[in-house]
Each structure stands twice: as C-alpha cells, then as structure tokens.
C-alpha cells in the first residue's frame, strides 16, 4: 500500500518538476525575443511552414465545419421558426468558438507534432549543445523564430477559417436549404460585433502560445524523459505534446470564454 503512495508522490513531483521546466522554458523564450541579432530569414521560413503550408488543411476543415454547422443549425432553428437567423448562428459559433479551437487543433496535428519531433531530434543529436558552445543562444536562434511565426500565423489562419466557414454555411444555406443569401450575410453583419472578433483574436493568440510552447518545450527536454531514449523518446514526447497542448488549449478556451462572453 505504501508503495502506491510512494509512486503517487513520485509522479506528483515529476509533474511539478516538468511544469517548472516548461514555465522556465516559456520565460526564457519570451525574454529572448529581444536578443540581437534577429533571425529574419528563419522567421520567414517558419511562417511559410506554420502559416502558408497549413492553408490547405485550414481551408478544407473550415469549409466542412461551416457546412456542418449550417446543417445543424438549420435543424434546430427550424423548430423555433427562426431559420433566417442561420447566418449569425453560424458566424457567431465560428468566430467565438470553433474558429480558434478547430484551427488550433489542426495546427497541433500538423505543426505541433512535427515541431516537437524536430526539436527532440535536435536535442538527441547534441545540436543545442553545439549551438551553446558556439556562443549562439538556442532560444534566440531556434525557438524565437518558431514562437513568433506561430503567434503571427495562427490568428491569421483562424480568421481565414472563420471566413471560409461562413462561406461553407452560405453554400449549404443558400444552395441546399434555399435560404436567402442576402439575409444570411445581413444577419452576420447585424449581429456580430467587435467584441466577438476580439474574442476570436484573443483566443487564437492564447492558443498559438500554448501550441508552440508545449510542442517546443516537450521536445527540448526529451533527454529528461525517464525510461526511454532515442527514437522511442522522440515518439513519446511528440504524443505527449499533442495531447497536452490539445487539452490545455481546450481548458484555456473555457477560461477565456467565461471572461469574454
């Protein structure tokens, strides 16, 4: 019986140690934002990877999400005789909630996993040690470009998701459910306010930080994973990073929503 308590205590200590490490990691990344020289080339490369190349998946998922939303809302709104409100229903759901959350999930799947693996492999191959010994800060050179690229790209991707989702809803509403396209767009313009848009932006910024921070942080400390090494360790931290960033993001979503709605 006592061995179980011991195990629990051990696990708790590990978790707290890890939170401490990740916290210190984030702090160091943020303070390194102002270090010179600034890697513009690397930043552009990362924006291309995180932002530009995520476009196809965002466009597709945004479109389908919007379309499904329209179908769902049509069903519900029809029972209240309010189908003409569909535009704002779809729009509000996307802008307040699904845009930021779905975009973050898509980015976690694509960027979170690969960035975590990349950083973990760099750690295993002593590339960070090499940078440190060359008097080049790994934080400034490797982490900062990825961090900034995420913070710039993810809100933009969210906005694109929202727009394409609204278009998806339009397609379903107008061409499948025979609603008035003008009415659809009008309800959107009428009901959606700046505070809704602000919520979208704030959430996407918070999610961006969560996604990139956890992906890089877990990869960076892969050598401290107990019981595994090499390729197996890379696989393990990548899985953990994806799960942890998804759950943290959803939790942050709840907190943000309770403050902003």
């Amino acid at each position, binding site marked *: 019986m006592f061995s179980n308590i011991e195990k629990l205590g051990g696990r708790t200590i590990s978790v707290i140690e890890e939170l401490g490490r990740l916290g210190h990691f984030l702090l160091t990344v943020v303070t390194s934002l102002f270090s010179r*020289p600034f890697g513009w080339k690397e930043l552009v490369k990362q924006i291309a990877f995180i932002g530009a190349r995520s476009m196809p998946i965002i466009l597709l998922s945004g479109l389908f999400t919007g379309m499904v939303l329209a179908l769902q809302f049509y069903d519900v709104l029809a029972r209240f005789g309010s189908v003409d409100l569909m535009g704002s229903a779809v729009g509000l759901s996307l802008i307040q909630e699904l845009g930021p959350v779905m975009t973050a999930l898509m980015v976690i799947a694509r960027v979170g996993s690969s960035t975590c693996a990349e950083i973990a*492999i*760099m750690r295993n*191959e*002593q*590339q960070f*040690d*090499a*940078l*440190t*010994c*060359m*008097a*080049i800060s790994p934080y400034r050179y490797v982490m900062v470009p990825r961090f900034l690229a995420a913070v710039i790209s993810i809100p933009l991707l969210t906005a694109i998701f929202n727009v394409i989702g609204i278009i998806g809803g339009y397609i379903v509403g107008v061409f499948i459910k025979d609603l008035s396209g003008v009415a659809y767009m009008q309800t959107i313009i009428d009901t959606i306010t700046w505070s809704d848009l602000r919520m979208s932006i704030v959430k996407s910024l918070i999610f961006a930080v969560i996604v990139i921070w956890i992906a890089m942080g877990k990869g960076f400390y892969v050598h401290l994973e107990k019981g595994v090494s090499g390729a197996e360790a890379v696989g393990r931290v990548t899985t953990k990073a994806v799960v942890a960033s998804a759950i943290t993001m959803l939790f942050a979503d709840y907190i943000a929503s309770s403050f902003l709605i």
Partner: protein
Amino acid sequence: MSDNQTQSKTAQEPSKDQVLIQVNQLDSAYGERKILKGIELSVKQGEILVIMGGSGSGKSTLLKNMLGLMQPTRGEIIIDKMNINTVDKQQMLKLRRTMGVAFQGGALLSSMSVGDNIKLPLRQHTDLDESTISIMTRLKLELMNLAGFEDLMPSELSGGMLKRAGLARAVIMDPKILFFDEPSAGLDPVTSVELDQLILELRKAMNMTIIVVTHELESAFTIADRIAVLYDGEIVKTGTVEEIKACDDERVANLINRKPREVQIDGEKYLSRLTEGAE
C-alpha cells in the same frame, strides 16, 4: 581597440608551460547519482591532453562540465584565467568564441547545408565579407578531405563525413582550444589515422590546445602529450604515454592491455539467480 586586446597566439617559450585550463576538486552528479569525484586536471597551452576511460567512467560528464554545459556540485573549472561557472554571461560568450567543440556524430544543424553549418559561427560573430567566409570554409573542407561537399545536407553524409564536417565547423574560427569528443568512434582505421595526423598538424600550425576524449588506445598513444585515465568517476593516473604504459595500477593496466574485467562467481548465488522464480 581589439588589436591591443588580442592575446598573442605565437608560441613564446615561457608560455609553452602556461596552464590554460585548470580543473580543481570537481564533483559532478545527475540528481542523486554521483558521477565525478574530486577531479584534478590541468592543461597547458599548446598541449594535447587525452582523457581516456571505459564506458561509465564519467568521460562525457567531465567533458560537459569543462564545456560549461552542466554545473558541478563542487569544485571549479578555470579556463584562460576565468572561472566558467561564476564569470558573467558576456565574458563566457567571449570565451566560447575562442573554443571549438567537435561533437560525436558532428551535431550539425539538420536544416542547413554542410557549408552553411560551417559558416554559421563566422556569420554570427564576425563582420567578414562573404567571399572571405566562403574561401575560409573551403580551406577547412579541403583540410578535412570534404572538398565539394559544401552544398550537401547533413542527411546526405556518412557518419565519418559528418564527424569531419563537425570538426571543420569546430576549427573554422581557429580557436585557441579544441575539444574533440570520441574522434575515432565509428571511423575506419585509415580515416582514423588521418584524423590523428590532422589533430597533430592543427596543434603544430595553429598552436592549438587540444583535449580529446576517447577510448581508442592507438589514437591516444599517437597524439597525446599527456593522458588522464578516468575510472569510476575518478582520475587514477595522469602522465605521459610512457608513464601510462608503465603504470602498474590495475585499473590503468587493464585498460591499456585490454583485459576484460574479471567477474567473480559465487556458485550458490549464481545458481539461485539463474533459477529464481522457477518452481
């Protein structure tokens, strides 16, 4: 301004005996696990010191400490008159620029070509013209027999080539001190001998102080001015190649003579280990 502050790199007779690196009473541990105990080491300017030891002797930990990649639990490391664990960040960065490190496996950045990897320290720390940087890089590649490999990516290189590329990067700024982690591991004998010769030439031409961590006896005897033998986290003997060969300490002799450690068998205990759990 910088001209006056640059230390003279020419070998004047008195400075040949000048101690460049001093390790005092070093203890090091990973959490509870103690790895190094009471390490005492000094490296003179222009000398080649080989740190030898079997697996688990603490070689990598000692190297990490000397490179400032981990903090010791006790003791100090003094490089070029600076205590690397107490000196301020700016001073440490300045010191690092005079040190080159060749890691096992090369440790090249996978996202850049071999050439860009080697040019990295020059581009980050100097104002040299791109044309100068390009020629410097090619000079080093030629030296390492990697001519023409500039535009390849690290993933396209063999293990031996990666090592040599890593060495090229380590010496691109003509450092005062070169650290080499397991140069011969994974190399064929011919390349290994060539690498040994290169290390000797680098010291001769550039008056480099070189610290090599290895377990390859032949290389060690070829290149070392002095050898420090590490066993179980302690230095059991430091001396010239002759002194090490003549040493009658069992641990040193076994390493030199490549004798496997004797496993003492207690018959009864052995039998019970083999049959534990069986009915």
